[in-house]
């Protein structure tokens, strides 16, 4: 049984991997987080700066856990800039997990949204036939392509990369490629994580085709354990009831794809 911690435990950064000019993976030893279910997240404390929710990334070594971070604002940049030997605090794991269905499945990730999908791929069943669709702006920003091929080498799979400027892989958005794929192939499930507008399109597409779909959502998080209310969406708490929701629920949501909450709790449009 996985143990859930609510107090940060301090971990030392053992390795930093540059994925792209703006994305890095940091590796720590944490046997609890190393074994979490696909889709779960942790609250990561950057002492003196902030604490951010982060999906738990896979590693290729036993007992190690990782986070893959894109530098954006002050806090993610501070996490990105940490060096080997420096410390972070982690608490978790929190949230639910993807429901991995049998058969042909497709994973659609945008940017660091690929993180929980990599764990999903690692946990996939031997019988799964897996397509991973990776979306990014340009060639520079493509990551995890080789890693995905490595972890899926024993399974039937394909990895399709798209770039918005066409500098690598297929030109365009992942949603365009997905639309084409579902015309020709009968998929049993679609899993997605990335920008909400992208996920919204994917969920609509899947629902219209009657394909089972799950999306992992992002909201402003403070406690991560369902007491502060900052991550609420309609009547659910994304940290506690999610972060993964299925297409049926998302289709009924007034907020998904349209609004999210600012730090004060005010609803803002996407």
């Amino acid at each position, binding site marked *: 049984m996985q143990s859930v*911690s*609510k*107090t*940060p435990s*301090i971990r030392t950064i053992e390795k930093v991997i540059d994925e792209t000019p703006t994305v890095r993976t940091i590796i720590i030893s944490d046997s609890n987080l190393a074994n979490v279910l696909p889709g779960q997240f942790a*609250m990561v*404390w950057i*002492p*003196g*700066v*902030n*604490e*951010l929710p982060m999906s738990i990334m896979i590693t290729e070594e036993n007992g190690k856990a990782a986070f893959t971070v894109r530098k954006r604002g002050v*806090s993610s940049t501070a996490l990105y800039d940490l060096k080997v030997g420096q*410390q972070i*605090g982690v*608490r978790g794991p929190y949230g639910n997990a993807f429901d991995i269905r049998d058969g042909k499945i497709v994973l659609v990730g945008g940017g660091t949204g690929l993180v929980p999908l990599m764990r999903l791929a690692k946990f996939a069943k031997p019988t799964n036939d897996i397509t991973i669709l990776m979306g990014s702006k340009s060639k520079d920003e493509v990551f995890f392509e080789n890693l995905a091929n490595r972890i899926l080498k024993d399974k039937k799979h394909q990895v399709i990369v798209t770039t918005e400027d066409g500098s690598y892989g297929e030109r365009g958005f992942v949603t365009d490629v997905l639309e084409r794929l579902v015309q020709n192939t009968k998929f049993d499930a679609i899993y997605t994580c990335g920008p909400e507008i992208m996920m919204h399109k994917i969920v609509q597409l899947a629902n219209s085709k009657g394909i089972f779909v799950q999306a992992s959502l992002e909201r402003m998080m*403070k*406690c991560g*354990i*369902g*007491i*502060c*209310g*900052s991550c*609420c969406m*309609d*009547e659910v*708490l994304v940290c*506690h009831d999610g972060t993964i929701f299925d297409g049926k629920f998302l289709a009924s949501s007034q907020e998904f794809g349209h609004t999210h*909450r*600012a*730090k*004060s*709790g*005010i609803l803002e449009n996407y």
Partner: protein
Amino acid sequence: MTPDLSVSIGPIKFGRPAMLASGILGISLEVFNRIYRSGAGAVVSKSLSKEPWEGYPNPTIVGIKGGYLNAVGLSNPGAPYFANMIKSNKDVPIIVSLVGSIEDEFEFMVQQFEGCNVAAYELNLSCPHVEKVGLEVGDDPKLVTKIVSRVKSVAKAPVIGKVGLGTTNYLDTVKAAIDGGADAITAINTLRAMGIDVETQRPILSHKIGGLSGPAIKPVAVRCVYEITSKYDIPVIGCGGVSTWEDALEFIFAGASAIQVGSAIGDGWIDVFGNINDGIANYMKKKEYSKISEMVGLAKRF
């Protein structure tokens, strides 16, 4: 006969004894609806200020042995935004919690709620980690009387003062609220507290000092409810560390007319309300009580 779980807190009546405490899950009407359906008698909003507040950087909430430490910094969307959001509310008894530093601010906020269905106002006189509001107001009995009486003069709904343990004897704060015309008292808020990470030697909360809640503060809260109801004739809502029906009854026997539940939601989620209702109902059947009010203050016989 099924026992009657309804409670009266002065002029205020609720169908069930446990309500959601302020600051917990309290920013959206849909979530309030869900908590009400799960068995809460009422919900208290996050403490609202005149303007929206972002609150402090994380870590703002962490678990510790015996409960939680928090310094959220009263992040909230502001009273005008919140009032607009709850305009459509018909079903849920919502207690609006307000925080501010002078009477004028409170009057402005109450005015925002004119067209809304508000069950009561709870004035936060006890937040331990935001300067110039909360405990600093509660520690100034003259100001408390002024604020409560101003709110009483403009509010249609009853007014509850929420007290905590500051530098002034909290019984003086209670007295000041009564002098201002408060209809009830909620006791207690979190206790000023701190946690330090031993490996990094740093305070864990970004604000360093925050409030302690959960099982660790229950005996203190029970004592306060007992003392307030022994000294003054005012209904009290007990708050602090309630997570089971036994905890709820302990507060009722100490003199509470109803109770609030906060931190326990982090462990038992909102099922806690249904469990408290069922446990109290079974106890009442076994001990042959028909109403909750028959049990209020029973510990004072001894």
